[in-house]
């Protein structure tokens, strides 16, 4: 009788991982050491380039990022930890890379950077680096809530020829293996991050593309409403976890 009750209880519980584990904690000690070593972490090149871009004249007569925002270590501390955030003017939430490009077009009269460009990755990595060690604190603007729900829907929706949802792997099978690769719980604590597989820095959108392509579905556009919704959901799922930057993953 008691056994049956326990079994019923176990079945009633949602099949999600109870304890949150970041990709960093699941990496080998060697890779953790590589990430923590200030002379062995290749992500530092992008951070250094981002720092240069931060104070570089955009060439349009407008101020540099630093001209308005000042020292990033003051003005940008904790900012990346709360993105995606609501943008009044466009009436939707935007991700950090989207915000950088909006700043360029609105305030610097400059062309937006290509989504997959070293410039945008460098600036985003530099800004994320300013939140290193701070907890992820999702934007509490209630207008982002419907977007977050949409993200949760997307996370649970089966897609592609393989008919798989994000949740099937990253909630239910997290900690298991897909081939030889460990399935992480998908907490975006360090994006943009340096993946050894990519041999370069990459955005969360690139990671989404990888997974979605992997289940043989059509990836969305970087910065699209779908990706920003998904990121909003993942960030609230990872709320309180510590931002790492520059992060390394295998």
């Amino acid at each position, binding site marked *: 009788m008691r056994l049956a009750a326990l079994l019923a209880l176990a079945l009633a519980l949602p099949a999600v991982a109870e304890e949150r584990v970041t990709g960093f904690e699941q990496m080998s000690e060697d890779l953790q050491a590589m990430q923590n070593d200030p*002379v*062995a*972490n*290749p992500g*530092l*090149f992008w951070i*250094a380039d981002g720092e240069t871009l931060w104070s570089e004249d955009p060439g349009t007569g407008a101020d540099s990022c630093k001209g308005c925002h000042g020292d990033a270590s003051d003005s940008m501390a904790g900012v990346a930890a709360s993105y995606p955030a609501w943008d009044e003017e466009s009436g939707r939430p935007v991700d950090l890379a989207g915000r950088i490009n909006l700043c360029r077009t609105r305030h610097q009269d400059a062309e937006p950077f290509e989504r997959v460009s070293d410039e945008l990755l460098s600036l985003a990595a530099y800004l994320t680096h300013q939140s290193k060690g701070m907890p992820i604190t999702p934007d509490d603007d209630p207008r982002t809530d419907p977007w977050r729900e949409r993200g949760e829907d997307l996370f649970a929706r089966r897609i592609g020829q393989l008919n798989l949802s994000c949740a099937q792997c990253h909630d239910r099978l997290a900690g298991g293996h897909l081939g030889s690769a460990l399935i992480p719980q998908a907490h975006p604590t360090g994006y943009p991050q340096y993946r*050894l597989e990519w*041999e*370069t820095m990459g955005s969360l959108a690139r990671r989404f593309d990888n997974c979605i392509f992997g289940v043989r579905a059509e990836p969305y556009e970087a910065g699209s409403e779908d990706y920003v919704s998904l990121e909003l959901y993942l960030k609230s799922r990872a709320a309180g976890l510590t931002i790492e930057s520059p992060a390394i993953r295998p």
Partner: protein
Amino acid sequence: MSALVNIPETAAPGEIVDIKVLLQHPMETGFRTGPDGKLVPRNIIHSLRCLYLSEEVFAAELFPAVTANPFFAFTLVAETTGEVEILWADDAGEEQRQSQTLTVG
């Protein structure tokens, strides 16, 4: 292309000193095709050397299988105060050099 070169500033005589070098480089293999369908020309760092007191103490020959942004770590024995130089060259003909004085005593 930037580089992160870590050479200690001071060492005791006879001490084994760690040298770490991280280089920013695409290490293009020459086997990949670009968006136009043509092969992207090979451009890798093909050699890296370390001189201490003008004498070669470490040398490496690199090949297309080496990762982008390669990392090197090696040691040398500190003898007397002198310059530690790191030199590297790639297929595009770019030769770079970084050096630092190692004070022994």
